[in-house]
């Protein structure tokens, strides 16, 4: 081949590349979590549901007593739901009186509207549970009894509501339904764990059923857990992964085909922490000394299968786990301590008792670990040690029920403890104005 003909081929190649590139944007994306197209922190655990903030310019350490408190919003009732924030609005729920209330606040913490969605949860550990999800001018939420409702984000007007336990023949669970529904474009994903569907997609405009997956084979396994689904692309498919009461299930997000179930139960059937996708595998953890497992996702011609890679002792209750740079970070319940787990091997690099169990999110080179007794800590990640850089007390430390997860957005840290939502300034002073 002469240089000239080669260059001609190369030029043709570039033209083809440009065409392929456009098509690749829709069909050819690599494997990984599928982010919400909405700005901000529009759903539980952030844009990808991985509890990872992409922001930079955050404080590397806090002053004594914590970062500057900008405001506190009160009157949010009793609840563990975390805020979601998008389009200049904060949406958060709480139980007030006998009702589940949904609040819309502005970014100064002022209430703009509130709405009701059925009954409060007065069973074990009373209080509101699930976070909201925002999509295209609508706010979606499911209450502790399985009532999913869609609200107009502008004024809180209820657009539609469905009782998913009723529709899909599901049953209540001991500690109340806690699933943070996932909005997948024109569909809202719910996990009723019922005789008529393990998982289902509802039309986001009307609440009508779009697809309903098969129930799981074992009726006890297939009842819904307390966790929330994640959406990811794998081998050209879009798949949903969520916990059942006694197993982990993988469902095709477009067709509702149930691909695989991995059975694993915890002592009291409390499957709570949202599963974590990291480099081709799903990590999840169950409390009561039930341990953690990493399942590789194998995509084949006929679907997706789980293959167990390793188990690890950590038994996370509800605070979740964050993957970062080859390690998983989270805390155990009956095997207490903050743990760093090697994603290759499942080996625990350390177990630290420097903080009680709690929730964790990641942002700008730090872990934000909120202990259930209200100890808020900033931790430098790494396999050597649980390296607490700064800490302050959110509560008086008498109650072990600070369970809402921290949220990071626009260099602000949001912490919720029942009636109050606290907003802190965590912008690094020298950080550029633009993110």
């Amino acid at each position: 081949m002469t240089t000239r003909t080669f260059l001609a081929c190369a030029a043709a190649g570039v033209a083809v590349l440009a065409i392929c590139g456009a098509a690749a944007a829709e069909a050819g994306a690599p494997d990984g979590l599928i982010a919400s197209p909405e700005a901000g922190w529009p759903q539980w655990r952030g844009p990808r549901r991985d509890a990872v903030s992409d922001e930079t310019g955050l404080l590397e350490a806090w002053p004594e007593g914590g970062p500057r408190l900008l405001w506190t919003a009160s009157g949010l009732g009793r609840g563990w739901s975390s805020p979601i924030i998008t389009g200049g609005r904060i949406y958060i729920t709480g139980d007030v009186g006998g009702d589940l209330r949904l609040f819309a606040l502005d970014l100064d913490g002022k209430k703009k509207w509130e709405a009701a969605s059925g009954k409060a949860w007065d069973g074990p550990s009373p209080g509101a549970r699930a976070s909201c999800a925002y999509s295209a001018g609508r706010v979606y939420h499911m209450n502790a009894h399985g009532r999913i409702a869609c609200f107009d984000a502008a004024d809180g007007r209820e657009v539609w509501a469905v009782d998913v336990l009723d529709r899909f023949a599901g049953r209540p669970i001991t500690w109340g339904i806690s699933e943070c529904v996932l909005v997948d474009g024109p569909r809202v994903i719910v996990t009723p764990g019922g005789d008529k569907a393990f998982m289902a997609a509802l039309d986001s405009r009307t609440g009508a059923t779009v697809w309903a997956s098969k129930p799981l084979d074992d009726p006890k396994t297939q009842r819904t857990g307390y966790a929330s689904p994640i959406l990811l692309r794998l081998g050209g498919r879009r798949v949903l992964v969520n916990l059942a009461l006694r197993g982990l299930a993988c469902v095709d997000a477009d067709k509702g085909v149930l691909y695989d179930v991995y059975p694993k139960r915890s002592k009291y059937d409390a499957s709570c922490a949202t599963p974590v996708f990291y480099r081709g595998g799903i990590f999840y953890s169950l409390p009561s000394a039930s341990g953690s497992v990493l399942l590789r996702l194998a995509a084949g011609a006929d679907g997706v299968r789980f293959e167990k890679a390793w188990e690890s002792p950590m038994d996370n209750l509800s605070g979740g786990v964050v993957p970062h740079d080859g390690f998983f970070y989270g805390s155990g319940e009956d095997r207490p301590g903050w743990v760093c787990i090697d994603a290759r091997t499942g080996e625990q690099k350390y177990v630290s008792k420097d903080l009680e169990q709690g929730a964790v999110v990641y942002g700008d080179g730090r872990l934000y670990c909120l202990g259930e007794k209200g100890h808020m800590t900033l931790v430098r990640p790494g396999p050597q040690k649980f390296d607490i850089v700064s800490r302050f007390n959110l509560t008086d430390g008498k109650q072990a029920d600070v369970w809402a997860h921290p949220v990071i957005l626009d260099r602000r840290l949001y912490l919720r403890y029942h009636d109050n939502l606290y907003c802190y300034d965590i912008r690094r002073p020298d950080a550029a104005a633009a993110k």
Partner: protein
Amino acid sequence: MKHGLMALVMVAAAAAPLCGEDWPRFRGPTGQGISHETGVPTEWSATSNIAWKTPIPGEGWSSPVVSGDRVFLTTATDGGRSYRALCLDRAGGAVRWDKEVLRQEPGNKVDPNSYATATPVTDGERLYVLAADGTLAALSMDGEVLWTHREFPYYSQHGLAVSPIVWNDLVIVPFDWSSPGPDKQVGWEKPWEKAVIVACDKGTGKVRWRGKRGLSQIAHVTPQVVTDGGLNVLLTAAGGVIQGFDPATGEQIWTVSTPGEGVVPSIVVGGGMVFQTSGFKQSTIRAVRLGGKGDVTATHVAWEQKKDVPMIPSMLYVEPHLFTITEGGAAVCLKAATGEIVWLHRLRGPFSASPVWAEGRIYFLSERGETTVIQAGPEFKVLATSALGEKCCASPAVSGGRIFIRSDKHLYGIGGAAAAAKEGKPE
């Protein structure tokens, strides 16, 4: 890290069922030259134990692959212009189809190379082929071209020799090419940043991701996806680098410096390590422990060995040993854990084909068409020597109790049929 080192490294493809084992890609089901078959022939000649022998038109040093009752092969006729795929009947060797996949410009290459060197890969649904001009194509099992991916305008000082692999729904090809000019030493003698690993959707040929090496040099190394504990890792190498990528996204996880260029032997793994040669200039075998992050040259190179390093034939890992053969015929057995040489014996070369292991035996096929079968172990012992009398550069395939060997003129189906063996020469 004690436990980390002990993490099982499993070749992803090994999880596939092994019954009636196919040989779906370069170096077989695991990409490691290992067959799990039994009843594999040990001895033959041009006239004995040959089940069938089928003339193959054109020129090509790609190796045969086997899926079910089909054997696939690529070749180039018309001076390299017609890039072709053939399907033969495994039992009798009859050509089921022989189709032109595409027309290609016979570009630059060195003499030992051909215009059909990339071994095809099949997932049982399609056959994926890589032409000498860098075009990747998918064929139906009946030879119908389903898609072609011509995005990459390949040029190399050596011509193309890497083989594609399939992982999940991706076809993965490293393009460790070199500059077509004006300075042709760029990418070849001089490192550059234009090497790219391309992963295409196997159903459509559309690009899913492109992986970047950073600075590297020309190579023809067939990669390997393995499971390293909870993580999948795509192991690849080129001139100057051995690297691990996330096979789902193409993100580079770690890299090790290994000076050299023109690297040909494919990736071999075992015992938590990847073994790789460094090509020309400073020929060295390096063993790199898996599980690194970033540049782990200082921390993860377990050992180096500079004596009798193969440039063309791939190495063979059979726990606890690594077996190698140089082009000139130095057969070496090393301790895989340390790189220490256990034995070294000279066979009659030259050698291009990569060795194959079956039933405790290792098959070294020379360019003279002579196969030396030895026992795989710490003592060197020749079990048999068999000559076909034709030039052989492609690597043997093993499937269904038969060995498939490509010469410059024929594809041979060897052994595996007692009746045929007795008759000596079925037609």
